[in-house]
């Protein structure tokens, strides 16, 4: 965010837009020059730094671009007063001495005062005089400067420019497809109000504040500006804002339209900060790690898309998805009974059937025993077992439901080898349900081996080919079976009553032997 006198905009036909500094050749060259100047000035005075930056304003760029870039660079600087004694202490001593005289009107008297005061502070008169004004802004010394890439500087500048324009915004509509938790959390933290509309997988969030109901007010402009970074960091976004422009006596309401298609390269990219974003708590991170390692077939999503409840939204911490089923998990840190009850109530309104709330026992702020239902209590980490049980139960229920539906379906097979997974997709059901169905009604002329159906003839064909092999190496046999188009060679070998004899750990040395 920049001082508003450094904001540059163009407006046409009711629209307004900042005049950006795109990362093109001339702007990158300018940014590079400015960064170098700051770097060279480490150890020198702030006053002379700004004097040396003045000529840049003659280069044909708008002077506000240069001052804006410098304002951002100054944030990477640390300045300090360099003096022999604390400047304030020096002034106090000098001013008290000065007060003994009617007026210090001559250099002679000035010198005498320094000579009188200096020994009491154990410095020389010259050191005293130098210390006296050393904390004035111009006299500060640039101590450190954290360099920044020219392109990154320009992108930060463009973001700041947009934020500065948003200071004057009375309302903001944003459309995004991700990063919801951060966006909504920030809306809440900033005391703003929102309403949400969903179309396809994009959410349009309209944001203003409680006073906006009564009048067009710029009161929330600063807060709306703070909402910008988590939006422009996403992969696909657009925004519309109403901006108050013009003079105070004849204000006009203009429209700012921006979207990722046309403005993406202007702003700091997603992978700079958004990509590296971490979990809220180590509890959640730990949970995600151990769940993923279990390979349950359920797809785990962190911060799934918002659930809508009337005009409010809720974003659970995790979702588990499988075959069109979704289970949500909300991890609760500090909580009270009232809070949990309210949360469960809200979920009820959402008509979300499958939601597990995991609450930390040690962080409870009231008794929790009375609460029943989908609340799991944990102590150090979110336990996997009850969640796995919950998901397993859902699996079983699903298979049972789908099996019933499949009872009246005729499954006809044509290929020699049919994978159950493909069948499941064909019938829009789970592999488990298909398998269960095929087990109870085995199709004629096929054998079920693992998750594969194989025609009897094909199986004997493989059997004959295996018998004719020149050697008895396992690897030769596996290759033959795979070449026949079967993905589960071990199970075929087993079905054809072959046993594998291992000679050490090396698969190449293993042999097969038919057990008669």
């Amino acid at each position, binding site marked *: 965010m920049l001082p508003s006198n450094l904001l540059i905009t163009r407006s046409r036909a009711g629209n307004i837009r900042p005049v950006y500094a795109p990362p093109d050749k001339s702007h990158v060259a300018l940014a590079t020059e400015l960064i170098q100047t700051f770097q060279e000035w480490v150890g020198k005075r702030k006053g002379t730094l700004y004097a040396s930056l003045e000529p840049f304003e003659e280069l044909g760029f708008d002077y506000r671009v240069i001052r804006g870039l410098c304002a951002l660079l100054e944030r990477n600087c640390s300045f300090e007063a360099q003096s022999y004694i604390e400047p304030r202490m020096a002034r106090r001593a000098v001013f008290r001495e000065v007060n003994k005289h*009617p*007026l210090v009107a001559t250099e002679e008297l000035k010198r005498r005062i320094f000579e009188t005061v200096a020994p009491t502070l154990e410095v020389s008169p010259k050191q005293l005089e130098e210390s006296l004004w050393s904390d004035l802004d111009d006299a500060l010394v640039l101590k450190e400067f954290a360099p920044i890439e020219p392109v990154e500087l320009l992108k930060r500048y463009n973001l700041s420019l947009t934020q500065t324009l948003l200071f004057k915004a009375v309302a903001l509509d944003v459309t995004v497809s991700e990063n919801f938790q951060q966006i909504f959390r920030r809306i809440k933290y900033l005391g703003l109000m929102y*309403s949400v509309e969903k179309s396809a997988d994009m959410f349009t969030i309209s944001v203003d504040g*409680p*006073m906006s109901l009564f009048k067009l007010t710029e*009161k929330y402009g600063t807060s709306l500006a703070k909402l910008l970074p988590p939006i422009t960091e996403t992969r696909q976004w657009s925004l519309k804002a109403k901006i108050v422009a013009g003079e105070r006596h004849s204000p006009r309401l203009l429209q700012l339209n921006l979207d990722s298609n046309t403005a993406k390269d202007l702003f700091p990219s997603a992978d700079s900060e958004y990509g590296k974003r971490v979990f809220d708590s180590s509890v959640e991170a730990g949970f995600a790690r151990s769940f993923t390692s279990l390979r349950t077939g359920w797809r785990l999503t962190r911060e799934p898309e918002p659930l809508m409840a009337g005009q409010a939204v809720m974003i659970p911490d995790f979702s588990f998805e499988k075959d069109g089923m979704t289970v949500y998990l909300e991890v609760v840190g500090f909580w009270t009974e009232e809070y949990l009850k309210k949360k469960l109530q809200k979920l009820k309104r959402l008509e979300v059937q499958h939601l597990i709330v995991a609450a930390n026992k040690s962080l409870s702020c009231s008794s929790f025993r009375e609460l029943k239902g989908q609340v799991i209590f944990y102590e150090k980490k979110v336990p996997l077992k009850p969640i796995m049980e919950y998901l397993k139960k859902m699996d079983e229920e699903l298979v049972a439901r789908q099996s019933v539906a499949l009872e009246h379906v005729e499954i006809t097979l044509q290929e020699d080898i049919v994978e159950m997974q493909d069948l499941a997709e064909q019938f829009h059901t789970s592999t488990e349900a298909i398998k269960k169905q095929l087990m109870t009604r085995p199709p004629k002329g096929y054998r079920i081996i693992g998750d594969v159906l194989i025609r009897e003839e094909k199986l004997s064909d493989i059997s004959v080919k295996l018998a004719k092999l020149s050697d008895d190496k396992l690897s030769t046999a596996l290759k033959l079976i795979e070449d026949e188009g079967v993905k589960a060679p071990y199970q075929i070998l087993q079905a054809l009553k072959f046993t594998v004899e291992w000679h050490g750990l090396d698969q190449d040395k293993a042999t097969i032997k038919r057990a008669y």
Partner: protein
Amino acid sequence: MYAKIFYDKGTILIKGDLAIPSSNWDPRSGAYRAMALFYRDIVEYLKRSNVNYVDEALELLPTPYLQCKVKLKNFQHDALKAWLDAGKRGIIVLPTGSGKTMIAVAAISELKTPTIVIVPTLDLVEQWQRVLTNEFNAEIGVFGGGENVLQPITVSTYDSAYLRAGELGNRFGLIVFDEVHHLPSAGFRHIAEMFASPYRMGLTATYERQDGLHNDLPRLVGGKVYELSVQHLAGRHLSEYELEKLYVDLTLEEKKEYESLYKIFTDYLVKRNITIRTPRDFTKFIMRSGRDQAARRALLARNKAMDIALNSQMKLDALENVLLDQPMEPTIIFTQHNKLVHRIAQRFLIPYITYMTPKDERKEILDNFREGRYRLIVTSKVLDEGVDVPDATQAIILSGTGSTREFIQRLGRILRKREGKKAKLIEIVTRNTAEMKMSSRRKRTRRDDASVEPTNY
């Protein structure tokens, strides 16, 4: 019919089965919503309509017994009474230095309700905090200058109150706006709108604003309930003062440079056929300079010329003469720019205060001045309003803008009562420059305004 009312971030939410005047339907909350400003009206409406209602809007801070020993002067007492009679709302207009603070103190003691005082500057925060601590013997909360402490009696800057209105707005029964003429600006009026405080007091020496926005004050705080002008008080409660104007000429060198720079500016105006008569014309010109390189050069040249006039060497010499003339008078020197503050401070070794001066150092300097350890202070605009510097009997203006209010406020600084003392205001102006125009504009407006006409001019 029933209703339940809540406070929500600067607004009042009304849940129930009836619509209430001044409220709008808010579909997002499924309830009626009104600005917190209307809290008192809403409650009165519900009472009058015999509606069964629950009021959860105010969450007043638990407050100890607030009692002070302040003894009001007659006119202060009249002002307080007028305010109480007007329903504990409204604005009291009194000259600077007449003890407006004490009227607010007495009001707090009378109402015994948690109170927030809104003031324009950090110096005033400091000053109110000191007075309130003394009078109520209690810890006083502060918002502003990096401090965020909430107490039953709290002082806040307009800026902090604007930013935090949504969270503080239902914690106080009484809200006092010091220098209330700041309140009607587009941003700050939100403070009055977002606070639910039923009791409101505005204090100022200059009710009218040039832009006419003071017409909004009756809605925000209440109407003018009491007014007293300078001539009613001067001599009795305030010291008399005289005004002196010193003209200085630019040095030859300065004059040459000034003229050539100013010509760049006027040439540009002639070339583009621009006339600048009002501050608005000037704002337009500044906006133009953002787009137009030539306009920018003209603006920079004008600024540089003004800089020469305002910072003229001759002015410093004139200042030296004045200071030598009155070697005992506690004096505050005002300038418009920090640059000149530092030049004066460094030339005469005078303690200085600018907006950059840290709060505690500013306090230290003012304390030293008050207790006579420093005779002189040089400052830019930071001491403009209401800061209590009791022993200043002389003020010198080295440069200033043409604003009427600023002029009166500065004048007010030296109006502190001191036995048998005639205060003095000296203005040092450069002759034959644009600054002359600024200075005469001040005088003209002041003459038009009878209530501040000095008795001894």
